[in-house]
C-alpha cells in the first residue's frame, strides 16, 4: 500500500529530514512512527501525500509511483489519503456536520451522497448528538473526532495521523486510539506519528523509529523504545 525506496529529503540544502529511508507498509497495517521532534516523522507523512517532494528515491502509493504524478493529478491521489493533525485543522465558522460535509462538497460529491454519508460517519465517531455545534463549543477529543470523521468520510485507503493525541489528555487519547483502531479494522492502512509512549506500548503494533532522518528500527509488534 505504501512503499518507500531510498527516500532522501533535505530542507534548504542542509537540514537532513529523511535519509535513505526504505520501508514497505501493507494494506490494513497499523504503523507507529516514533522518534524525537525533528527526527523526520512529519516529513515522512508529508511526503506520502505529496505536500513535499523527495530529493531522491521513489514513493509508491497503492502501487503507483507518485513522484512522476502531474500536479493536476495530485488532488485525485489525495482523495485516497485521509489526514488528521495535532491541531485538528477544523474550520471555526462551520458546524460539525458542515466541516465534514465540506470535505465531500469540495471534491464534487453530489448532494444526496453528502446528506447520506455525513450523519453516518458522525455516528461512527460518536458525535451524532453534536452535529450543529461549532468547533469552539467542543472538547479537544470531540474536535479530533470531527477531524477523523472529515478525513474518513470519503473512505480513503490510507489514514495519516500526525500526533493526533498530542493535545489530548490520556483518557481522551485512549478513546481516539480506539476509534483509529476501528477504522483500521475495516481495512484502512493507518500510519501514525506519535510521541505517546503509553499508546505505543499498549497497542503493540508495528513501530518504525526515526533518528535524525534515518530509520533505525522497524519492528513488528514493537514498543516505543
Amino acid at each position, binding site marked *: 500500500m505504501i512503499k518507500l525506496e531510498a527516500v532522501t529529503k533535505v530542507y534548504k540544502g542542509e537540514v537532513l529530514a529523511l535519509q535513505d529511508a526504505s520501508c514497505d507498509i501493507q494494506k490494513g497495517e497499523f504503523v507507529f512512527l516514533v522518534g524525537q521532534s525533528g527526527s523526520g516523522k512529519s516529513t515522512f507523512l508529508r511526503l506520502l501525500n505529496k505536500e513535499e517532494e523527495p530529493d531522491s528515491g521513489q514513493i509508491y502509493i497503492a502501487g503507483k509511483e507518485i513522484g512522476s504524478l502531474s500536479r493536476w493529478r495530485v*488532488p485525485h491521489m*489525495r*482523495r485516497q*489519503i485521509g489526514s488528521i493533525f495535532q491541531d485538528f*485543522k477544523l*474550520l471555526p465558522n462551520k458546524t460539525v456536520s458542515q466541516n465534514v460535509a465540506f470535505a465531500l462538497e*469540495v*471534491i464534487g460529491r*453530489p448532494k444526496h451522497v453528502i446528506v447520506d454519508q455525513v450523519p453516518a460517519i458522525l455516528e461512527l465517531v460518536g458525535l451524532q448528538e453534536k452535529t450543529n455545534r461549532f468547533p469552539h463549543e467542543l472538547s479537544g477529543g470531540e474536535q479530533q473526532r470531527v477531524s477523523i470523521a472529515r478525513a474518513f468520510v470519503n473512505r480513503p485507503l490510507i489514514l495519516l495521523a500526525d500526533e493526533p493525541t498530542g493535545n489530548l489528555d490520556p483518557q481522551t487519547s485512549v478513546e481516539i486510539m480506539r476509534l483509529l483502531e476501528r477504522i483500521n479494522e475495516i481495512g484502512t492502512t493507518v500510519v501514525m506519528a506519535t510521541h505517546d509512549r503509553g499508546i505505543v506500548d499498549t497497542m503493540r503494533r508495528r513501530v518504525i523509529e526515526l533518528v535524525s532522518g534515518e530509520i533505525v528500527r522497524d519492528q513488528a509488534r514493537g514498543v516505543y523504545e
Partner: protein
Amino acid sequence: MVMNFDYLIKETARNLRRNLTLTLASVLTVAVSLSLLGVALLLQKGVSNATDRWENGVEFIIWIQPDVSESQRGLIETDLQNSSGIETYRYVDQEEALREFNEDFFPENPEITQLVTVDVIPPSYRVVPAQLNAEAIEIIASSFETKPGVKKVVRATDEISKIETATDVIRWVVLGAGIILLATGLLLILNTIRMAMFARRREIEVMKLVGATNWFILIPFMLEGTFQGIVGASLGTASVYGANRAFEEWLSSDNVLNILQSFAVTSGDVWGIGFLLLAIGGLVGSVGSAIAAYRFLDV
C-alpha cells in the same frame, strides 16, 4: 469535473461581501479607467469620422476677391486647368456660396444670415488635387496664393491637422490616464483576491488536503475578479454612453456650428466601444485574479 453550481455562486457572493470596501475600490477604479479609455476611443472615432468627411470633399479652397475682374478670374481658371497636379476643380459663385453659408453654418439663426448679402460673400474654387499628400497640396496651394484676385487659399489639411493635433494631445492624455488607471485596477483586483485567499487560507488548506482540484479552489476566486472587472466595465460603458448622449444633445442645440456635427459617432460605434470595454474589464478581472490565485495557491 463535477462542480456544484450553487456552491460556486455561494462562495463567490460570500467573498465579494466579505471584502466589500476593496471590492468597491477595484470596481470603481476599473469603471473610471474604462470610461477614460472609452472617451479616448470615442474621440478617435469622432475625429476620424470628421476627417473622412473632409478628406473626401474639397482639399483646398481658393477664395476669390468679391470684386475680382473677369480677366483675373480667367487667368486663375486657366492655371487651374493647366496645372498637372489638379484632379478636378469647381467654381462656386456668390449665390451658391451664400446658400451654403446659410445652410451649413447658421440654419437656425436667420438674423445672422440676413446680415450677409451676396456681394460680401466671396466666390471660390474648390480644388481636388491629384495627389492627396500634404506636401504636394501645399506646393499647388501656395502657388495660387499670390495670384492677383485671390483673397486667400484655405487648405482643408490645415484645418484638419489643427483639429488632429489638438485631439491627438487630448486623446493621448486621456488614453494614458486610462491605461495607468487600468493597471491600478488590475493590481487592486489582484490584491483583493489575495486578501480573499488569505482570509480563507484555512479552508484552502483543508480543500487541498482532502483532494479538491486546483480548478475547484481557483474558480470562485477567478469568478470574483471577473465579476469585479465586468461590473466596473459596465459602469464605465454606462458613463461613456452618457457622455456621448450629452455630446449629441449639445450638438443638436441651437448654438453649435454644423461643422461639429461631423464629429458625431453612430450608435453602432458606441455599442462597439461598450462591448470592447466589457471585454477588457472581464479580461483584466480574470487575469488579475488568476495571477493572484495561481501565485498564492502555490499549486
